[in-house]
């Protein structure tokens, strides 16, 4: 890339500007498991990396192609099942595939199933597409029961990832070794998916999303554009599925069903479908919350659902959208003027959330715990769920939070107008 004539230094700078993000991401992936080396942390980071690939592949449909799928886990799941079967075939000595390439087997499986099922579903976009995807989930879930030899029935299919064959000579007995394999595939898959957005097909997928009426009049068959985009998306979902199979050494029907498809929709939307990096943020946050909340509360899924609704209503462009809105303010050096208001909003939000959370937890305790009358524990405090003080506190906190938030949100609006005017004024002068 750097010619002899180019000044070494500026060539270096160009390299950093072009590949800096990727180099930084690679370094981060190398360093993170050294910093956080507990078993739980490694598991979580592995799952985050897989979720990122899965979520980015989902956004190839939703964000880039305008196809809202409720069944993307089908290709993730088939990637997982085929990968685990491939692992078992290698163990039995039928085929020779090094473990490092098993995710690719998953990818090809996802690709082929996406070709098989995608041709029909991509004929139409919009509601029709969404409904067909829902129908396909039902179809596949029915197949899980029909073909127990392939899907392993209820307990699923397990395998042993410690294969004889390995390119790197790694045994993959340690979770951290698997993490590095996942991280490698994460970088490869993310880079490929990013590059895909810069190709003719990627661009026409945007065009078909924006205006399916016009696209045929620039020569494109919109069905085929969607179909090819869909097939590629299935490929990357399959890679993610293959990695999950390696990570847990077991694949079951949960991975292929509607719930898994729902998870990927939620995390992608929370991250932001309008930006390439949105799903990365979403996958990291969602996986983190999902894994931690499940350990501390029965209401974990409820909080995630609330987060999703809040995002849909108040930040439809997701976390990435929130970040990007602040980019010009950041560049103009005005972000510090928002900090006091944002801190107040965060404080008010926390107060209200605390109140709501107490109420949710009390109710969960009363209706789901074995002994509703026994004292419950929350945030290190022990109290009776059916006594009145926690209820009063909860309501008081919600009300207080509301009265803190209301003026703060109004002031944030004013501040935004002020800053916008200032930035525009600065430009014209």
């Amino acid at each position: 890339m750097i010619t002899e004539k180019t000044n070494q230094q500026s060539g270096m700078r160009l390299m950093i500007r072009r590949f800096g993000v990727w180099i930084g991401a690679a370094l981060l992936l190398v360093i993170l498991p050294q910093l956080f080396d507990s078993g739980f942390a490694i598991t979580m980071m592995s799952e985050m990396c897989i979720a990122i690939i899965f979520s980015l592949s989902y956004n190839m449909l939703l964000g880039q192609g305008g196809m809202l799928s409720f069944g993307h886990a089908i290709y993730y799941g088939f990637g997982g099942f085929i990968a685990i079967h491939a692992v078992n075939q290698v163990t039995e000595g039928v085929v020779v595939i090094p473990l490092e390439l098993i995710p690719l087997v998953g990818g090809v499986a996802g690709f082929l199933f996406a070709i098989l099922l995608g041709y029909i579903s991509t004929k139409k976009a919009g509601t029709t597409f969404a409904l067909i995807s829902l129908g396909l989930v039902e179809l596949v879930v029915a197949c899980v029961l029909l073909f127990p030899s392939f899907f392993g029935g209820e307990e699923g299919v397990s395998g042993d990832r410690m294969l004889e064959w390995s390119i790197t000579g790694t045994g993959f007995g340690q979770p951290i070794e698997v993490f590095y394999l996942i991280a490698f595939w994460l970088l490869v898959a993310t880079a490929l998916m990013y590059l895909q957005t810069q190709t003719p097909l990627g661009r026409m997928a945007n065009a078909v999303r924006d205006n399916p009426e016009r696209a045929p009049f620039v020569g494109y068959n919109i069905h085929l554009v969607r179909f090819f985009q869909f097939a590629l998306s299935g490929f990357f979902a399959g890679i993610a599925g293959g990695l999950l199979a390696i990570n847990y050494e077991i694949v079951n029907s949960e991975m292929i069903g509607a719930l898994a498809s729902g998870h990927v929709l939620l995390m992608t939307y929370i991250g932001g479908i309008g930006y390439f990096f949105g799903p990365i943020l979403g996958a990291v946050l969602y996986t983190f919350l999902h894994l931690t909340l499940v350990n501390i509360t029965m209401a974990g899924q409820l909080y995630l659902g609330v987060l999703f609704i809040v995002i849909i209503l108040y930040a439809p462009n997701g976390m990435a959208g929130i970040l990007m809105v602040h980019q010009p303010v950041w560049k103009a050096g005005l972000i510090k003027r928002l900090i006091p208001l944002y801190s107040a909003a965060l404080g008010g939000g926390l107060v209200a959330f605390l109140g709501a959370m107490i109420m949710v937890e009390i109710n969960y305790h009363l209706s789901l715990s074995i002994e509703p009358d026994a004292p419950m524990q929350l945030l290190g405090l022990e109290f009776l769920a059916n006594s009145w003080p926690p209820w009063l506190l909860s309501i008081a906190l919600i009300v207080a939070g509301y009265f803190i938030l209301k003026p703060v949100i109004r002031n944030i609006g004013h501040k935004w107008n002020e800053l916008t005017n200032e930035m525009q004024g600065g430009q014209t002068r």
Partner: protein
Amino acid sequence: MTTEYALSLENVHKNFGGSEIIRGVNLDVIKGERHAIIGPNGAGKSTVFNLISGYYHLSEGEIKLNQQSIFSLEPHQINRLGLCRSFQVTNLFANMSVFENVRCALLWPMGYKYSFWQLLGRQKALNDRAHEIIELINMTERSYIQVGVLSYAEQRALEIGITVAGGASVILLDEPTAGMSSSETEQAVELIKKVSEGKTLVVVEHDMGVVFDLADRISVLVYGEIIATDTPENIRNSQAVQEAYLGKEEEEGN
């Protein structure tokens, strides 16, 4: 010597439900001419465009593009045979820049098809051509602006730019100057003359000034039928056309 037709419609019919909107249109567009279709509101001008471009399917009849039958083809197939159209309502790729819009219109004609192994940024010929088209429509300074924030006249100009970008030999423009001020219209007409050079142009237009300025021949469409096709001068003097436009009540009764 026979005249070579770029486009010919033979006895074209179109029904929507029970009502017949196009009732046997016959139209021959000579290769290289600028042909205008005029007619009162609701005469079916846009429907004729939608039929030619494959957006609607014919109920009956035959359409030929460069002597080749196209009546059963899909819009993208007709487009690939060298016919491109604009829309009456601005119909762009809204979330993209001017440059991206034009580039999208160039992808298929320049043979990129469904490629996912070539990076757009590296396709010099493609990007140069896109810039040329943008220069042709005088929008160079606006290249990287999202089309949603362009002025109306600019959007219309881009609409024309996208339509001609692919190098189609037959261009259909649906009311290219609708809603423009007179100075904008003047510019638009100049642009249309410039981009349609050496090509066949069919234009639907309400503005008679534009029609008489642009067209080599004019067809008058009234209630789903072409009642006259002739030179602008003869059309201007035609009794039948005058009546159609003035809307003689007793004729309507038939």
